[in-house]
């Protein structure tokens, strides 16, 4: 036991005696640990914002659209697909046993004005009241429009959080008038803040008007999506059923391919997984590379250290050090050089992840990763220290004492 503590003390004092050399040697380890921890931080942050974004999509919502989200078909195969129609909604609801809510959604971009204020590039959604359920939307103040308003084509509008802020700073927007082009709308509700979707576009930067109104003012034709909420437990069954119903509605022969797509959150998830593997793989590659290089550096410096201290080793052996205790001393030295590098790497990574958290997206460095990287650097230290320590342990004391 004392022997271990003493070996430790000797190893530490040797490292302390060669501060600069140790610091330079550990650079590879530092970079390796930095790479693996920062990558972990990055992935954790991406995970978090991805999950947050996914919660907007809803796990149990199917999105029936003209095209697949991440389709791999050639464009000429799918360009002639017909648009979706509003009447599908009622037919789907009538024939499906899974559908809990369904809303047709159509979108265009427009500017919303109020007196001198203008909110530019707002996504104007035309949809029905069931959108509240399919989009998991909460109204912060006011209300969503009613079925009656939808059917009658009332000029009412529910605005997103950012839109409300832009047009009505410190004012209550409910009941106020805004204009899209020349059409005047009355604000009936403000949606709760939702944040950005995958950091790409904001869900607070939109306004929702009744589908009836939308079609009267803008267009009855064009792009449309059907958002269908089914029970989470049945999502796969529901997907099959809805695909079947859609095929029937479209009058497709069994041999014909679908001319529509039933999308779900999983599509994003798969894309994301692919990306994550790419990021992770790159990180692991850099880490392994720099740890190997760092390990070789440490092996080299340990060989130098053994050479330099040949006489010391001779003395220690003469006064009773066993091969084991010499081996232990040098192994611990290599181990601590690596652990030292690992700690510096983690400290730098903490700083880095703080910056990522502050300037990129919310993230934290996973503790488990810090521990893993410390273990990793210990392993590198031991592996790199083995050969030099073995050489030190096997030195012939007579030769070593004679060494100049």
């Amino acid at each position, binding site marked *: *036991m*004392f*022997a271990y503590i*003493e070996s430790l003390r000797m190893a530490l*004092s040797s490292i302390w*005696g060669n501060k600069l050399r140790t610091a330079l040697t550990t650079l590879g380890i530092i970079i390796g640990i930095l790479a693996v921890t920062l990558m972990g931080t990055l992935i954790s942050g991406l995970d978090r914002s991805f999950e947050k974004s996914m919660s907007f999509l809803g796990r149990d919502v199917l999105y029936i659209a003209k095209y697949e989200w991440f389709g791999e078909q050639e464009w000429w195969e799918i360009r002639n697909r017909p648009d979706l129609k509003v009447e599908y909604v009622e037919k789907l609801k009538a024939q499906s046993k899974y559908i809990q809510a369904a809303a047709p959604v159509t979108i265009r971009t427009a500017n919303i004005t109020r007196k001198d204020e203008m909110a530019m590039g707002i996504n104007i959604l035309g949809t029905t009241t069931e959108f509240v359920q399919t989009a998991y939307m909460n109204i912060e103040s006011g209300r969503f429009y009613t079925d009656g308003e939808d059917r009658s084509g009332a000029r009412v509008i529910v605005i997103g959080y950012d839109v409300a802020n832009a047009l009505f700073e410190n004012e209550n927007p409910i009941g106020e008038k805004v204009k899209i082009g020349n059409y005047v709308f009355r604000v009936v509700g403000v949606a709760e803040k939702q944040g950005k979707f995958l950091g790409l576009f904001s869900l607070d930067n939109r306004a929702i008007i009744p589908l009836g109104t939308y079609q009267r003012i803008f267009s009855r034709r064009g792009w449309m999506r059907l958002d269908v909420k089914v029970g989470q437990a049945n999502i796969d069954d529901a997907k099959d059923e809805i695909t079947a119903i859609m095929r029937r509605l479209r009058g497709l022969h069994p041999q014909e391919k679908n001319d529509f797509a039933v999308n779900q959150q999983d599509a994003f998830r798969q894309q994301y997984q692919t990306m994550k593997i790419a990021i992770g793989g790159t990180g692991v590659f850099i880490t392994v590379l720099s740890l190997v290089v760092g390990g070789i550096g440490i092996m080299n410096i340990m060989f130098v250290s053994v050479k330099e201290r040949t*006489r*010391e080793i*001779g*003395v*220690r*052996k*003469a*006064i*009773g*050090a*066993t*091969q*084991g*205790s010499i081996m232990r001393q040098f192994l611990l030295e290599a181990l601590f050089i690596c652990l030292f590098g690992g700690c510096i790497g983690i400290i730098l990574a903490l700083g880095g992840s703080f910056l990522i958290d502050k300037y990129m997206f919310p993230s934290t460095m996973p503790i488990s990763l810090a521990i893993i990287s410390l273990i990793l650097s210990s392993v590198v230290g031991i592996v790199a220290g083995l050969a030099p320590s073995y050489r030190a342990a096997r030195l012939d*004391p*007579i030769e070593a*004492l004679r060494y100049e």
Partner: protein
Amino acid sequence: MAELIKFKGVKRYYDVGSEIVKALDGVDLTINHNEYISIMGPSGSGKSTLMNMIGCLDSPTDGTYEFEGEKVHEMDDNQLASIRNRKIGFVFQTFNLLPKLTALRNVELPLIYANVPRDERLKLAEIAVGKVSLTDRMHHKPNELSGGQRQRVAIARALVTNPSIILADEPTGNLDSKSGVEIMNVFDELYKEGNTIILVTHEAYIAEHAHRTIHILDGCIEEDIKNHKSKTRKKLRKKKATA
């Protein structure tokens, strides 16, 4: 007197490729407790090999070596390390102190390998430093000490485990004559206290301190003589006479 060291036909051959060097070629030697011995011989005579052999740093190619009844010639590396640690104190020509440690820590070193607890280690080390009268300098590093002081630290290190034998290889070789005398006085004192001391030297006046001188030539003992005029003997006789 009990037998401390017993060599019987000890041979040590080195195979240097083209030929076999016979560093020791059949040495028979018995050393008893509380002897004061000097080993002399020209360079290449095998005296270093003999010293390494006595110090359990080397194993014989042939022959037997018993140290207080323990069969050294059959020992493996760890057992040799252990016997060096417990039974043998080394003093080198070049002191061989660890430069980064203070005098006290240098003296403590063998006790670390003997697995002595820290508090006890420091106590024993301080006693050993006291024996070579360096208590006031024990917290200095070797480079802050004079040559004579360094060698005294080395002697304290050799003493600290209370070994059966102190093996000194040219202990005054790197010292000026004044420090040399000082160091030899320390050895004389240690001998009087009952220690067994073996000096390896090629200086006749150093060898005079010992009461038995072994001359080595070509790997064999050429001469093994009692030195009745030894300085320590004289002193001892004086002491006895006065007593």
